[in-house]
């Protein structure tokens, strides 16, 4: 054992020592690299460089000699008989072709659905407002399409549902519960409508935000409940936040949820879009998308000095509604120049929006109507 270890230790020590210092005793110098250099005379150098001198411009690059001109055809130049630009004949003959355009695919279903929700109200089945959760639909009739989607989206509804569930326990107070049901039902309907246009699965987040738009619809629906004493009593609660009623904890929760949904309607009547505004990035994305198709190459120089403001309404799938595109204003040029600039802008909006602009569907209210200012200042002739 010791012997083996000693031998091994000695061997390794020697190896390490050789590795560290073995090379130091070597006196063989590293080889030097040698590069051969050849001398060249001035004449040779000149001879070498001579061909590199810039070639003298060969003045006589044979240009084809112009063909001998033929005899002047008799000097007589009869001006072409002026074609009568028969202006009188200006044909309105061409009746504007009845645009055979296939009218845009009808998304009319939305209108129907939105109107019908009121039918939903009857469900006094005291049922829990929770209908959304389990219910394949509280309103199967109205929107069979809609129905399946809401079911698939548990999360957004969860908040409202939780509240409702608690209320269901006190079925005794059927009245307040009923009101809640009405509102929730409408919300679902709207969200579903949206999803129909797109992908049902993706619409989940949009539902939670959409309620804000509802207020306007509810405002319309309010007159009906007013006839009934109970709803009238609740409305004040909604308007002034749920705070006033402290007694029932559960009800407060429901009211809060309602207040959130209705909050927007109180302050703003109709036109002002609700919900979070588009981020700068989203607006930039839209701007870039439109400018890719804004071709000013064929515009007159006067049109290039004209800034036009174009209004366009968008459908929920992000496509511009062609018929809605209109010039809202112009500056810097004549009417005809503004018209040219507007037509170029319109082509840009339609062309690049043919497949729909990538805009967040949950913010549809923000970009439902867009005003685009086309300012060609940077595109002018420089």
């Amino acid at each position, binding site marked *: 054992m010791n012997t083996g270890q000693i031998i091994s230790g000695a061997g390794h020590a020697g190896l390490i020592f050789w590795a560290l210092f073995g090379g130091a005793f070597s006196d063989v110098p590293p080889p030097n690299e040698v590069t051969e250099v050849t001398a060249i005379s001035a004449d040779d150098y000149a001879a070498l460089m001579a061909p590199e001198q810039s070639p003298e411009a060969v*003045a*006589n*690059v044979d*240009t084809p000699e*112009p*063909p*001998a*001109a033929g005899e*002047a055809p008799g*000097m007589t*130049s*009869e001006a*072409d008989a*002026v*074609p*009568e*630009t028969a202006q009188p*004949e*200006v*044909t*309105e*003959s*061409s009746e504007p*072709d009845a*645009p*055979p*355009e296939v009218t845009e695919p009808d998304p009319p279903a939305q209108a129907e659905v939105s109107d019908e929700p009121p039918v939903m109200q009857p469900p006094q089945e005291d049922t829990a407002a929770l209908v959304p959760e389990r219910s394949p639909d509280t309103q199967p009739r109205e929107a069979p399409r809609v129905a399946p989607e809401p079911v698939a989206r548990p999360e957004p509804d969860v908040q409202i549902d939780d509240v409702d569930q608690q209320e269901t326990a006190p079925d005794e107070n059927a009245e307040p519960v009923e009101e809640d049901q009405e509102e929730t039902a409408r919300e679902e309907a709207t969200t579903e409508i949206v999803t129909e246009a797109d992908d049902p699965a993706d619409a989940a987040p949009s539902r939670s935000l959409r309620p804000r738009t509802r207020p306007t619809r509810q405002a319309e629906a309010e007159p009906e409940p007013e006839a009934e004493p109970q709803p009238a009593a609740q409305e004040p609660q909604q308007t002034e936040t749920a705070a006033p009623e402290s007694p029932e904890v559960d009800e407060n929760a429901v009211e809060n949820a309602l207040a959130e949904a209705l909050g927007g309607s109180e302050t703003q009547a109709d036109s*002002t*879009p609700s919900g*979070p*505004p*588009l981020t*700068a*990035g989203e607006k930039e994305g839209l701007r870039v998308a439109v*400018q*890719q198709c*804004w*071709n000013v*190459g*064929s515009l*007159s*120089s*006067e049109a290039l000095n004209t800034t036009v403001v174009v*209004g366009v309404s968008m459908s929920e799938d992000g496509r511009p509604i062609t018929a809605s595109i209109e010039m809202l204003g112009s500056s810097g040029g004549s009417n005809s120049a503004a018209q*040219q600039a507007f*037509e170029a802008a319109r*082509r840009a909006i339609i*062309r690049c929006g043919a497949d729909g602009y990538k805009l967040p569907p949950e913010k549809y209210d*923000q*970009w439902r*109507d*867009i*005003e*685009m*200012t086309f*300012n060609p200042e*940077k*595109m002018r*002739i*420089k």
Partner: protein
Amino acid sequence: MRYMLSLLAALFMLAAPALAQDTSEDDGPLRIEITEGVIEPLPYAIPTFVADTAGASEWAEKITRVVASDLNGTGLFREIPAEAHIARISNFSSPVQFSDWKAINAQALITGSVRTEGSGRIVVSFRLYDVFAGQEMGQGLQLAGTEQGWRRIAHKVADQVYSRLTGEDPYFDSRVVFVSESGPKDAREKRLAIMDYDGTNVSYLTDSSSLVLAPRFSPQGDQVLYTSYESGFPRIYVLNVETVGQRVLESQDGTMSFAPRFAPDRQTVVYSLTRGGNTDLYSMQIGSGQSTRLTNAPSIETAPSFSPDGSQIVFESDRSGTPQLYIMPAGGGEAQRISFGQGRYGTPVWSPRGDLIAFTKQSKGRFHIGVMRTDGSEERLLTASFLDEGPTWAPNGRVIMFSRETQGAQGSTSLYSVDITGRNLKQVPTPSGASDPSWSPLQK
């Protein structure tokens, strides 16, 4: 280093909210501003016009091609070849399936029909559509003319399309008078010739027995002023384009007159006259022959050109030591220098729009065609070559034609045109050498 990182982080956190959310929470619709687009030829489709009568198919094909050639030649439009068309236009009056044209990205569609009538008349109808808007641009138009004038009919169709799409005034139905050249440089024969703006229908107005220079159209396009050495000295002549009749306009013993140009009123001609070694500008009433001296300086004043309203004249003078451009009232008076760049300026021509002046500039051994504002600002050089000179404006003030000469004893001259943007520089085909172009107004 750590301090810098923390500072950057703090700045980012401050800026993040502003980046993430647009702070402008205005009421009303979403507003965006678009300031940068693209500049490219507008793609369009022009199916061969429909032949409404048996003998019209040939005319339909030829007229369609000329219309397309006119539009393509501007550099502003790009024709989508017929092979790419999905739809076929077999009936001029049938409705257009815009979806078929959208699919090939045709942004404009031109349809037309041609029919022949007795006594050699051709009738052409056409319509222009904005494909993506799904509507017709303007109303359909019908033009009629003789078979001999079929090109003019085609040019007029193209003019209408061009104007509706660009907003510019038309210019295809116009002509150019120029000096046709043949032979070597040291023995070159020159004569006046006239052609369509695109180089077709060339005919000659004079023979080559005497040297001719600088033809200039009258505002109506029916007369041409030019300088001829027929008498041994340069003299100004006026020539009727229709009859090819000509007469001397200015002839004073011991003088040389040249560089004439009509005033917009057509009643006055302004020109240079050299007497006793001094060259000044004069104007003359064509009717009475009475001339008026406009400048009186020991320097050389030449190449006058009226403003479109006839109130001012831009001309070339070397009174400052080198040829420069000046503007003065049409009746004479104090001149104001407008060119101040390095180099020598000459042959100024006022744009028909009145906003620009085209000129020839020699600088650093090269010649340029350029444009500047009438106050001399915003000078832009559009071309550069061994020798470019003699600009002339298209009737709409959007295109400039000029002559270019190549270097060397065998060098040749030819005509070129260029858009005032500096794009679309191209040669105008002529049967032989050509120089000194003058663009006519739009034909009536």
